[in-house]
C-alpha cells in the first residue's frame, strides 16, 4: 500500500513548505532526501572527473558512474549495459536519434510517423529532419477522447516509413498508449519505434526486452532524480548505427588534426565531461523507485486522477479535456471560460501548484479545439485531501468570477 504521508516525509520540500499542494509532477517531480544527499555526498566525498584518472577518487567516480549505467539497464530490463547512453534529457535523446540514427538513412519521399499528442520535443526534431531531407511527417490523429485510433495505426505505415516516434503517456491528456501493440504493428511493417517514456518512466514498469522497442528516452528530473541528465536506450541491433552527435573529449580512439576515429556507442555519444554527480543522483532515485511497488504506485496515482475527475463534476461548468479510457495521473481541464492563467494564479495563492498553458503540445490543443488548459498531474506524495482542497478553491474561483 502506498502511504502518501510516509512518502511525503521523504521529500524535504514538504517540510519546508508544509502547505504546498504540488500538482505539477508532469513538469518535474520533487526529489527525495536520498537523491539530494547522493548528489551532495558525491561532491563532498567522492568528487573527481571520470574515465582517465588513476587515483582512487577518479576510479571510484568512474565505477559509480558506470554502475549508474548498469542500474538504468536493470531498471528498464535492457539486455546489455552498452545500450545505455547518458544525455542531457529526453529532448536531447530524441534529437540524437533524429540526427545520429535517422538522418543518414532518410531519403526524399520517405516518411516518419508520430502522433498528434506528442510533446514538442518528440515532434520538432522529426519535423525538422523531414523538412531538411524532403521527407514526409505523418501524424496519427487523436479522437475527441484523446486517444489514437490504434486500429488505424497500420494505415500510416508503409515501405517508406523510417521511424515511428510515439509517447507512452501524453503529458497533456494523460492518455496511456498501448505501446506493446504499437511496437508490434510497427515491427510487422519493419518500422523502428522510439518510445518517449518521459511521463511513464517514473511509476510505470517498463521492460525494453519484452516491449522490444528500438529506442527509449526519458529524463531523470521526472523520476525523482536530478536535472541535467537523461537516458537514451538503443536496441543492440542499432548500436553500430549510432553516429556521434557532439564531438570532443572522451569519445575518440585516435585524433590527428585532419581526421579522428571514434569509440563505439554509447561512448561516442558522451562527448565532453558528463553530468557525473547527476548520474549518482539518478542511481539513487532508481534505488528509491526500486523500493516501492511501482504497480501499486501507478494505481494509486491513477486513482487520484479518477477521484479528481469525479469531484470536478461537482464544479458546475468545469470540463475535462480528453477522456481516454486508459488514463495516467494527469488531467487537463477548464473552468468555465475563465482563462487558465487566471485560475492558476488563484490556485497558487492557496499554495496549489498546477500548470496552465499549452504544455508544449500546441498542435494537440489545436486538434482538441482549445488554446490552453489547466493541468493537474499527480504523484505518490499527493492525497485526496489535497484534491478536496483544490475543488473547494475552484468553487470559490467560480463564485468570484460569476
Amino acid at each position: 500500500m502506498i502511504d502518501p504521508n510516509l512518502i511525503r516525509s521523504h521529500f524535504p520540500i514538504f517540510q519546508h513548505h508544509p502547505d504546498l499542494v504540488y500538482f505539477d509532477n508532469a513538469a518535474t517531480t520533487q526529489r527525495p532526501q536520498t537523491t539530494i544527499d547522493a548528489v551532495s555526498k558525491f561532491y563532498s566525498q567522492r568528487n573527481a572527473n571520470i574515465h582517465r584518472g588513476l587515483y582512487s577518487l577518479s576510479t571510484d567516480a568512474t565505477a559509480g558512474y558506470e554502475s549508474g549505467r548498469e542500474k538504468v539497464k536493470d531498471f528498464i530490463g535492457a539486455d546489455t549495459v552498452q545500450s545505455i547512453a547518458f544525455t542531457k534529457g529526453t529532448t536531447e535523446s530524441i534529437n540524437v536519434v533524429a540526427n545520429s540514427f535517422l538522418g543518414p538513412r532518410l531519403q526524399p519521399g520517405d516518411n516518419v510517423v508520430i502522433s498528434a499528442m506528442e510533446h514538442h520535443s518528440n515532434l520538432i526534431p522529426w519535423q525538422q529532419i523531414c523538412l531538411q531531407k524532403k521527407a514526409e511527417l505523418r501524424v496519427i490523429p487523436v479522437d475527441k477522447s484523446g486517444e489514437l485510433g490504434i486500429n488505424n495505426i497500420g494505415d500510416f505505415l508503409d515501405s517508406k516509413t523510417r521511424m515511428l516516434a510515439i509517447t507512452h503517456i501524453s503529458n497533456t491528456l494523460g492518455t496511456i498508449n498501448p505501446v506493446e501493440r504499437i511496437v508490434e504493428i510497427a515491427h510487422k511493417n519493419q518500422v523502428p519505434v522510439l518510445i518517449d517514456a518521459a511521463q511513464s518512466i517514473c511509476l510505470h514498469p517498463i521492460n525494453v526486452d519484452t516491449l522490444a522497442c528500438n529506442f527509449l528516452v526519458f529524463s531523470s528530473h521526472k523520476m525523482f532524480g536530478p536535472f541535467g541528465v537523461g537516458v537514451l536506450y538503443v536496441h543492440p541491433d542499432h548500436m553500430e548505427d549510432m553516429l556521434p552527435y557532439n564531438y570532443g573529449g572522451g569519445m575518440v580512439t585516435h585524433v590527428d588534426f585532419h581526421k579522428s576515429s571514434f569509440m563505439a556507442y554509447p561512448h561516442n555519444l558522451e562527448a565532453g565531461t558528463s553530468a557525473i554527480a547527476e548520474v549518482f543522483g539518478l542511481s539513487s532515485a532508481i534505488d528509491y523507485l526500486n523500493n516501492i511497488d511501482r504497480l501499486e504506485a501507478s494505481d494509486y496515482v491513477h486513482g487520484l486522477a479518477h477521484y479528481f475527475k469525479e469531484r470536478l463534476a461537482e464544479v458546475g461548468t468545469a470540463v475535462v479535456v480528453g477522456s481516454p479510457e486508459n488514463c495516467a495521473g494527469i488531467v487537463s481541464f477548464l473552468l468555465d471560460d475563465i482563462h487558465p492563467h487566471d485560475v492558476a494564479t488563484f490556485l497558487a495563492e492557496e499554495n496549489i501548484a498546477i500548470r496552465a498553458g499549452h504544455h508544449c503540445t500546441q498542435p494537440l490543443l489545436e486538434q482538441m479545439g482549445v488554446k490552453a488548459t489547466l493541468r493537474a498531474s499527480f504523484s505518490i506524495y499527493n492525497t485526496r485531501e489535497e484534491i478536496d482542497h483544490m475543488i473547494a478553491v475552484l468553487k470559490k474561483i467560480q463564485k468570484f468570477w460569476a
Partner: protein
Amino acid sequence: MNDRLKALYQKVIMKHSKQPFHFEKKIPCDHIVVANNPVCGDNYNFYIDADTEKIGKIYFHGFGCAISKASNSVLATLISNQDWRDAYQYCNAFLAYLEHKDGADQKPLDPAFEAFSAVHEFPSRMDCATLGWKEVKKFVETHLKKEDIRQ
C-alpha cells in the same frame, strides 16, 4: 479570496475583461500590431487607424487571460485618438508605473492605471499586463523615428 488576489482582480479589471472596450476584429484598418507571448500563449491583434498627425481608433481582438484583456482594453480606451507623442508618453508611463520605475508607481499619469497597481506583486503576471503596451509602444516609436528622420 485573499487580499492580494482582491487587489489583483479588482472590479475595474473584471469589468474590462468581461466587457473589453473595442474588442473586435476591425478590418480594414491602417495597421495591425501583433502582441504574442509564446511562453503563455497570449495572442492579440491591435487594429489601428492612424494618420501622420495622430492615432485614430484602436480596436483589439485575441486570446488571453483577464489581466491581459483588461490591460489591452484600457490601452484601447486611453490611446485611441491620441496624438503620436502623447500616445508614446502614455505607453511609457503605463510601463513605468507597473514596473515601479523611478517611483513612477507613486503618481499615475492616468487614474485608469491604478487598477493595475497590484500586478507588481505577481511577477509571473507582469507580462500579461504589459505585453500589449510594449508592442504598441514599439509601433509608436517606429512612427516617431520615421518622423524625426523626415524632419
